């Protein structure tokens, strides 16, 4: 093997192992954060016995699930019953592979005894696989995650699970469309589908949350629906469906659903940060775009972690704040509000980009002004005089 190939293999292996380990630990912390966060919001203590502040609680839970009995209900379709947790676990883990999480590291050139020379020319991109299809890979793979839930619902041979599975497939198909359409405007501005290009485009201009606020709102709402989180957790709905599709699961098989849910949440948080909040970009400075160095990599990694962590907290915050939708309301929102708004927004953004190129004005200020108006209109339209106007009416009364 040439030193180049060895260097590439070494870099790839280290990236895969490190990212996977950090990811699994982050998922553990996310479950802990959810339980502590919900306890905080409900004025309880939450798990605080195992380890400092209950930090080792996820380890104890994992151990418990390892040792529990695997139950096989009598009428289940056995191969599919086993396949379902895998089908939801694997897609949720591999989607993170294409998200760039820090500024590139400098290449290396060193020699080890016995193993020989390792070289890596040029900067090492801090992403596990910088695929040319980038975001489309995430959309494609995450559209497979629905199989896990659907199969779990079907193979369990239980009415509650079945209803959960049916609800979930309807919900995920509806909101995938809004999710995909809201991302198209990002592609229009960045001109490419690879996520590293999306980050670079935001470094050149502004964060897309300013330029594409409506798309951000649509993406955020669809992301909640895609990950089956409150206010859209209809497939689980413990009050009516006894937690829906995983009612019949126990021990490690249940654990895999649980881990998959949090992995999906973390990926979605990272994706929101990358698409609309500049990814690993540090705001108000051009320092992070300089030549690759270890300090830049560490600082941008911190920036990325902070943004992702914020959206993780936001997920938990929303879960314990908003009540659940009714299923017809959910479908109505998806098809009658999100879809037309997303389509109209693509048209508007396309026209504005085309017009600005024609006239030759700077795109960013125009888009920001347009979005202030559009977002205000969207919020007003969604509110339909319930909260904003309602509060004023109450004050007047």
């Amino acid at each position: 093997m040439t030193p180049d190939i060895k260097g590439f293999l070494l870099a790839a292996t280290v990236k895969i192992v490190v990212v996977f380990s950090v990811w699994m630990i982050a998922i553990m912390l996310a479950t802990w954060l959810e339980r502590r966060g919900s306890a905080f919001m409900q004025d309880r203590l939450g798990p605080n016995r195992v380890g400092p502040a209950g930090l080792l609680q996820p380890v104890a839970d994992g151990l418990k699930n390892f040792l529990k009995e695997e139950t096989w209900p009598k009428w289940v379709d056995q191969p599919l019953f086993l396949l379902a947790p895998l089908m939801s676990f694997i897609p949720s883990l591999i989607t993170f592979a294409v998200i760039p999480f820090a500024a590139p590291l400098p290449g290396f050139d060193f020699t080890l005894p016995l193993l020989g020379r390792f070289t890596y020319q040029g900067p090492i991109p801090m992403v596990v696989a910088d695929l040319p299809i980038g975001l489309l890979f995430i959309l494609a793979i995450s559209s497979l995650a629905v199989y896990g839930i659907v199969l779990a619902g079907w193979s369990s041979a239980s009415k509650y699970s079945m209803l959960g599975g049916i609800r979930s497939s309807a919900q995920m198909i509806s909101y995938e469309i809004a999710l995909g359409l809201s991302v198209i405007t990002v592609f229009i501005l960045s001109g490419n589908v690879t996520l590293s290009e999306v980050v670079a485009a935001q470094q050149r201009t502004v964060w897309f949350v300013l330029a594409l606020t409506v798309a951000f709102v649509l993406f955020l709402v669809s992301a909640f629906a895609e990950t089956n989180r409150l206010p859209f957790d209809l497939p689980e709905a413990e009050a009516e469906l006894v937690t829906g599709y995983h009612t019949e699961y126990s021990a490690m098989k249940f654990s895999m659903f649980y881990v998959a849910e949090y992995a999906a949440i973390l990926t979605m948080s990272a994706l929101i940060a990358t698409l609309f909040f500049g990814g690993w970009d540090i705001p108000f400075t051009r320092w992070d775009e300089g030549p690759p160095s270890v300090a830049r990599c560490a600082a941008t990694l911190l920036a990325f972690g902070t943004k992702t962590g914020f959206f993780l907290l936001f997920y938990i915050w929303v879960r314990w704040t908003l009540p659940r939708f009714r299923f017809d309301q959910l479908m109505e929102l998806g098809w009658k509000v999100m879809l037309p708004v997303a389509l109209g927004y693509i048209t508007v953004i396309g026209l504005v980009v085309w017009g600005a190129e024609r006239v030759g004005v700077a795109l960013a200020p125009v888009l920001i002004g347009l979005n202030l108006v559009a977002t205000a209109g969207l919020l007003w339209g969604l509110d339909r005089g319930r909260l904003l106007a309602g509060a004023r009416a109450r004050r007047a009364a």
Partner: protein
Amino acid sequence: MFWLFAALAVGGALMCITRRSPVASALWLVQTLFSLAAIFVLLDAQFIAALQVMVYAGAIMVLFLFVIMLLNLGRGSATDMRGWTGRLVALALGLLLVTELWVLVRSPLASPLQLPAGTLSRVAQEQGVVAVISDSLFRTYLVPFEVTSVLLLAAIVGAVVLAKRRL
């Protein structure tokens, strides 16, 4: 690599048409579609591969499963092909398909479809994988593309009218 995915695709297709349970058939079909996506990647057509997974494996097959579950088709339903006439018709159609495939394999490729080796990956490097497709789709083949979309729209409207007599 090609033979691995080709074998997976053909195996999945065989399992799809031989399984009794509709859900199992649908899942084997997903495997076939997924292997086809892998073959697209081997052909340097990553964008087509992503679309294949997104549209076929991700959306259409989920709808299939949804309908199967909604109608609650049990395990082991009867087949449409019954008796000798059915089998004869199936055999004739199968032979016709084999002949067509044989002719297609034997005939030379049309010249616009022939590219020197490595062209695709070079163009993808220069323009990005999506631009390659969209350029020819929205410039060279714009009219056929639009006609197809109108055709699909007509099909959707027709399906709705057939399904819902009283709107």
